[in-house]
């Protein structure tokens, strides 16, 4: 079995408890307008090019075996004199990935940390993630997910993971479809499963100016979380302008419909009132 990983980040200090290694799984079914990891969207390996310093020397094109139709074969990568070209997405077996992660085990365990699977949407490659976790010898494992997955997958996730960090981006179904491209019904259903279950979880709310930074959204999330016994806390993630930085690298245009310069508004009162811990990250 193969999985496709587009990055592994060591010493992740904001992706769960303790010091963590975060594995970024490639591919995501959502198309959030504020996504800051555009190289994680498509499920297959792809070429990325940092355009800013390109000399337009043409060496890459000269060594392309399929001009005009990139197959992410990587033939051009070595020819860029500035090293600006890379293939995002590397295939790995669960055995190989687990072995790599276990090299850092001592520090992860000493600090009460572990491994976090992020993405993209890690649940798109759930069998691979599940098999990798099975080889991590009890190391603390967490997942950062949009919650958009089949119910059966999500049940397994709650079973296997020590911590689930799940986004609730928009509670309004229409707006959710508009800004992320998918229906939020399964996401909210999985939020309810988390609230009813025993698996420790964190709800994350990306705050996007003019999209969801309004009292009604905070109230809706807070009301949904009331009484959830395994909820650790709610994390607020204010939009950061640098989200658009990597779009050029994957040949995409960053064109959000919201005002990227407007500071977000934060309403913690609905959480405070219900005694739900909330932190702004």
């Amino acid at each position: 079995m193969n999985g496709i990983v587009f990055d592994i980040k060591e010493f992740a200090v904001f992706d769960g408890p303790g010091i963590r290694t975060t594995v970024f799984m490639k591919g995501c079914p959502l198309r959030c307008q504020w996504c800051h990891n555009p190289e994680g969207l498509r499920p297959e390996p792809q070429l990325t090019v940092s355009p800013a310093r390109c000399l337009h020397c043409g060496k890459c094109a000269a060594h392309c075996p399929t001009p005009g139709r990139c197959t992410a074969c990587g033939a051009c990568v070595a020819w860029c004199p500035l090293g600006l070209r890379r293939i995002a997405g590397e295939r790995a077996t669960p055995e190989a990935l687990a072995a790599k992660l276990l090299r850092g085990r001592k520090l992860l365990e000493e600090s009460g940390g572990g491994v976090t699977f992020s993405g993209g949407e890690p649940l798109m490659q759930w069998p691979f993630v599940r098999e990798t976790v099975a080889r991590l010898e009890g190391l603390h494992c967490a997942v950062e997910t949009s919650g958009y997955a089949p119910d059966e997958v999500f049940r397994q996730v709650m079973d296997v993971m020590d911590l689930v960090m799940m986004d609730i981006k928009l509670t309004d179904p229409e707006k959710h479809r508009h800004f992320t491209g998918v229906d939020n019904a399964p996401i909210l259903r999985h939020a309810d499963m988390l609230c009813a279950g025993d698996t420790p979880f964190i709800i994350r709310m990306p705050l996007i100016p003019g999209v969801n930074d309004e009292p009604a959204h905070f109230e809706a999330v807070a009301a949904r979380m009331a009484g959830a016994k395994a909820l650790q806390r709610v994390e607020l993630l204010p939009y950061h302008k640098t989200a658009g930085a990597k779009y050029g690298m994957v040949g995409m245009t960053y064109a959000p419909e919201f005002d990227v310069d407007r500071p977000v508004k934060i309403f913690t009162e609905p959480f405070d009132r219900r005694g739900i811990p909330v932190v702004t990250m």
Partner: protein
Amino acid sequence: MTERVRALRKLIVEDRAHHAFRREMAVDPAPYRDPALKDYQRTALRLKTFLENETPVILPGERIAFLRTLPDLPPIYTDAEWAGITAKHYIHEQGRVCNLSADYERIIGKGLLAVLNDIDAADDGSNRDYFDAMRLSLRAVLDLAARYAAKAREEGRDDIAQVLDKVPAHPAETLREALQSLRALHFCMWCEGDYHNTLGRFDQYMYPYYRHDLQAGILTREEAADLVTEFFLACNRDSDLYTGMQQGDNGQSIVLAGMTPDGGDGCNELTDICLTASAELMVIDPKLNLRVNARTPLSLFEKGTRLTRLGLGFPQYENDDVVIPGLVKLGYEERDARNYVVAACWEFILPGVGMDIPNIGALPFTGVVNRVIREKLGAVKDMEELKAAVREAIFAEVRAIAASLRGLYVIPSPYLSIFFEGCVEKGRDIAGGCKYNNYGLHGTGLATAADSLAAVQTMVFGRGLAPETLIAAMDADFEGYEALHHQLKYECPKMGNDEDEVDDLACFLLDAFADAVQGLRNERGGIFRAGTGSAMYYIWHAADIGATADGRTAAEPLPANYAPTLNTRLNGPASLIRSFTKPDLTRVVNGGPLTIEFHDSVFRDQEAITKVAQLVRSFVTNGGHQLQLNTVNRERMLDAQKHPENYRNLIVRVWGWSGYFVELDKCYQDHIIQRVELMVGT
């Protein structure tokens, strides 16, 4: 920080109003250059002349006096005399006593009058001139202290006068007296012409006075902290006059905590007070080192990390578990080894007993490996043969360095000598040696050397690249060899990513270095110590190497100290620490830290500080010897190059010390900016 110290900080750091007291010393002809005088007589007479010409100044609100008013210390030799000496001798750096740690503890505790008695007792007439030079020096120091006391009285500062009536002549009893005594003694060390000599284990030797004052009800903890903060600030009054290789490189370092000579844990309340004082003052002196071990509580690492977050480039961490056994292996007595301190940068030295010269030379790892690859690669049949050739070349280079260090001359320093074991008793100057007389060699560009060997292993012996193609590509600085350049740079393992293929080669290189110095003796009877530092050699050694086999182009500098090659794609700090703790570092304890740069956004909250502290602790538990963390913001440094006027207080770590960014030469600024490309971001 109290309002009083805040006002002093404004005067000294922001307004620099104390510079108004500075003036030139005009003594012509200089009596201390009388050709009939011996060198130590000249040093003593110059100290006397200089201190006599110093004008006592009491700054408003200060409690610890002594301010330098004469910026320039004239040399004891004429240019012609000095040229004659340098033609005949090996001269280390500026030729004066440097990079030692004086035993302030002993002298503060007994007072200079008692030392004068010791001198009289030791003087049997056979070495009268030298003892006279010592006496002359001490009386000059006492005289300046007396004039300071008189000046204080004149200005209605009887509190200062009373302290100076007592110290440094008599033993200090209170913390304030001990700090004033240290200030005076350290001040006069600079006036003797010695430099880069450190302040040592400040929290250890000041602790008895602190405890005394608290028990006697003389001071509260807060009042003690106020005095310590003022003392730290005082280290910045004259430090612009204390130049080393670059502005800020002045050796005013302090070592906190660590094992006591008896084997106990030295961490105490003053350790804490010092860390806090440094964090509040936000100035480059004194530079703090923190001695730790595998059992050090996480809370101390957290305190250190909170200081790191401020971007001063310190504390630097030393691991007792590695350094002490390493020093014992080199032949230092255990009690002395437990008392080690850190020299101006990071070399491990012994207060009061060591006349080691820990930075007398450097083995250029990259240069040696590069030369062997260029000369021998075509002739060797496998990696083992290449490694054997490298080992042989390292031995030859080390022997050549050792052989070149003959005929050392150091200008004597009778005053500083009283702080060292046996000098008074034997009438011997510290310039001539002490209990330990070892020479230390840095090892520069280790990672680039290991990466170069790993690239050869991968490409030549693994993938069948023709040796002549590799050499031709290196000669062409990889122009016309883009694909090969990419493979060398990105497809070969690099030190810092926890890949055994290359890390094993680094272990091999360090072992060869440690083996090569074994058995060598210097002309003073001392041994040679191998190390992992670079000092300014990383800039010097990068010139004339050309491109290296790891894909480094000719124009790219070498890494400073014990660090990965610049522009390496790193997995992250955890792999970095695992890579750099694989070698047996007890064998290379001359010093030289692993440096990790953090973007300032990493330290967002208490949780993040705990995690950085845990990372630091992992370096220690994995067997690392020395670690230095920087908090940087690349954008700010780039902007500071464009608009230096806006960044007068931007502090950065250079090679073994922190300085003000805008005061550095551009090549050092650029190197720091390149170095931070390897940093840990968010």
